[in-house]
């Protein structure tokens, strides 16, 4: 009864609320960051053009989709899958091998293939890849759900998946002929000049957010993540939760692998280790996005919307640095700084909100 009195009677306005809930340090840090961003936007040539905005979002799309999948794992309190890029590597080898398999050719090599054949080829390869990724996710999820440490389990799994992919492809580039069905996903566009992969990113972001907010599954993700013991006590076991979330993350990784393969008509196990994003390493990029979005590493707090915005934010900074002629080393440094920064701000924000005891 004494704590009801603590809530002030008149609803405070936005500025008062911000000053009450966040420490001055947080406010200063966030304002500083926004200022740098705005200044960069104004003083960088060609930054505020429609073309560049499209580029930013397209760059954010592939890592963003993977990060959305990973967000489910993080929100449910199961930390991260450190095997994201290896799942993608296994998936891309699987997909490209099936696309180029002899039994899967669309008829005489000289003639143009029929659309139906293209679609059929693509669908078979796509579905098999998704099934394999789901199994990969389910195995990791089950081990984590049984009490395995997520770091150990997924690092071990990473080696396993990479090894399988590398062995399967003889560590060679697997390529397949254009035209093929995956082009449509990788480089095509059916709404004006917006790339399909951008559309997919936006759709996945919306669906993921709706699932988290309005379904019982989404609610369980938050509850189990917020307090695993209380989740168990109220009938929501982490075992099933870990499996489901790891499957979601793995399927997202596989989807990205398929889309990326569609762009380059080929596959290699190292595609996601060396040729990706500013830092080159897909797993680190994806984790960076989840963190920069402001999701709690401990789970139970955050959203895929935050992750999507985190992806766009990192992509924006990266883009700005490219336009200003920074090399990749500087860009990796920027991503690293953003992670550290977001963790600090996040910790301070949470402490601030707890102070309303």
């Amino acid at each position, binding site marked *: *009864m*004494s*704590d*009801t*009195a*603590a809530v*002030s009677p008149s609803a405070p306005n936005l500025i008062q609320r911000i000053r*009450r809930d966040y420490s001055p340090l947080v406010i200063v840090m966030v304002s500083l960051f926004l200022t740098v961003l705005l200044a960069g936007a104004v003083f960088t040539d060609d930054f505020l053009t429609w073309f560049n905005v499209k580029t930013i979002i397209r760059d954010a799309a592939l890592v963003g989709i993977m990060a959305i999948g990973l967000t489910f794992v993080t929100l449910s309190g199961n930390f991260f899958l450190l095997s994201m890029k290896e799942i993608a590597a296994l998936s891309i080898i699987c997909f490209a091998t099936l696309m180029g398999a002899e039994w899967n050719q669309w008829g005489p090599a000289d003639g143009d293939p029929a659309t139906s054949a293209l679609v059929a080829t693509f669908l078979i390869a796509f579905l098999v890849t998704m099934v394999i990724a789901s199994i990969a996710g389910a195995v990791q999820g089950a081990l984590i759900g049984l009490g395995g440490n997520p770091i150990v389990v997924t690092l071990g799994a990473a080696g396993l998946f990479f090894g399988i992919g590398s062995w399967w492809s003889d560590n060679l580039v697997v390529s397949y002929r254009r035209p093929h069905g995956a082009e449509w996903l990788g480089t095509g566009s059916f709404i004006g000049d917006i790339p399909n992969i951008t559309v997919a990113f936006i759709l996945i972001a919306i669906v993921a957010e709706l699932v988290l907010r*309005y*379904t*019982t*599954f*989404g*609610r*369980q993700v*938050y*509850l189990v993540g*917020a*307090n695993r*013991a*209380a*989740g*168990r*006590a*109220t*009938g*929501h*076991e982490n075992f099933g939760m870990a499996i489901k979330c790891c499957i979601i993350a793995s399927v997202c990784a596989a989807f990205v692998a398929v889309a990326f393969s569609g762009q380059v008509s080929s596959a290699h196990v190292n595609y996601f280790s060396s040729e990706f994003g500013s830092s080159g390493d897909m797993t680190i990029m994806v984790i960076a996005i989840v963190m920069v979005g402001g999701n*709690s590493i401990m789970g*139970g*707090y955050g959203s895929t919307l935050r992750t999507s915005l985190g992806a766009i934010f990192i992509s924006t900074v990266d883009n700005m640095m490219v336009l200003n002629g920074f090399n990749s080393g500087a860009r990796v440094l920027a991503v690293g700084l953003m992670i550290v920064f977001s963790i600090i701000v996040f910790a301070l924000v949470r402490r601030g*909100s*707890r*102070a*309303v*005891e």
Partner: protein
Amino acid sequence: MADQPLLRLTNISRHYGAIQALKNATFEIGRGEVMGLVGENGAGKSTMVKIIGGFDTGYSGEYFYDGEIRRFGGPTAAEHAGIAIAQQELSLIPTMSVAENIFLAGDGVPRIASKGHLARKAGPFLDEVGLGHINPLRTTNRLSVGEQHLVEVARLIAHNPQVLILDEPTAALGETDSIRILEMVKRLKERGKSVIYVSHRMDEIFKICDRITVLRDGESQSPRAAADMDVNSLVELMLGFELGDMYPRRTPIARAEPVLKVRDLWPDGILEPVSFDLYPGEILGLAGQLGSGTSEILGAMAGATKSRGGKLHYRGEEFLPTRPKDAIRRGIAYCSEDRKRDGLFLGRPIMENMSAPALETISRNGILNGARERASTAKNAVKFTIDPKRLPQEAGVLSGGNQQKVALGKWLSISPGVILVNEPTRGVDVGARAEIYQILRGLADQGEAIVVASTDIQEITNLPDRIISFYRGVQIGELHLADMTSASILEQITDPFHEAGIAVSEKAL
């Protein structure tokens, strides 16, 4: 002694953002005095304790110690001046020996000392806190929680403090260990030390305190002699209004057909299988000290604790839950003793906490129905006297009493037939405690069957309709309403086989 108090704080105010924790509060303690500091959760007790101990330096007001104005820069400065705090949370290093823990700060011992030397030096301090029978070389984590609390106090005494602050020292302790703490306070007082005793437990306050300072909403009442007060007048001071009877009236219950039969349930930590019946409309108490096995029995009935065997007969079904889900699905709700561990989702809104066990009732085909969730949680919140306007707030911002109400109230969402509650009012202030008792009784009157396990002797004497007592994993006996007195229960739960040879009347004092 009141003319020249050893420690005196006047006009103390402390703000945390918009919240004023203390408003011009005053506190004093004389030499060789035991001062009780009481108040509801959120009344400012912890803030006062933190200020006295030098943990909180952001206050305004005057701090006199030993006749001089002081302002400690931190807890270490206060400790050097002779003010020591025993916090609720243990700060021992579990893997080190008792003696090493006592001399952790390294004061008063040579730079290089053998274990035997430390042990000899630690002996007197252990005697002081009533742990003379314990080998100082034992590893600390092999002691019971109560004994660890006593070791913590022994460590503070080793610094020879003038003022010792005990912040809810018995909150996590069973009856025997609590008695040890009280005896230690008496000994310290005889040696001229001052003790500030913070507690929710009225019986203890009256047993050992000379004077009592009441805090209410951050304001202090002038200290009163404990001898001039009784429980009712103290509670009235704490609440600002009269509480009436804390425990709801009990009427004899007709026990016809048991709703739940427990047969040969054998949880881990219990020496032999237990069987008992539970009747609709009754509150059954499981009495026992910490480690007596009552928690394990409740846990096993709910599928939260492993058991070696046994069956529950409930609603024509015979089963043994192996995980909480099994019990919840059948309408058995279980609220553990540690709400922060597994009773609440602190970072999530109260509403999500209230609906967590019964998501399927507020959803269709996996889609949540927001309106139905708001309606059902608001209804259950009102039953547990939680303001429905607070439902969107995080559960973590609530006071202990309100948190406990949420932890209990969430189970209404599954419309349970049986409610199992372990320590229903641990760390809960008097006002909320009375409310929780009323609510539990109200639920029983509606025909629910409730099992309460408690180590609080007052609570277990006055709340249940029937008691089954346990001692070190053995079922001792059953007491009906007419035979339920504190003395008879204490005898059964502390020394049923008359091993210690202490007369019960002595313990019940």
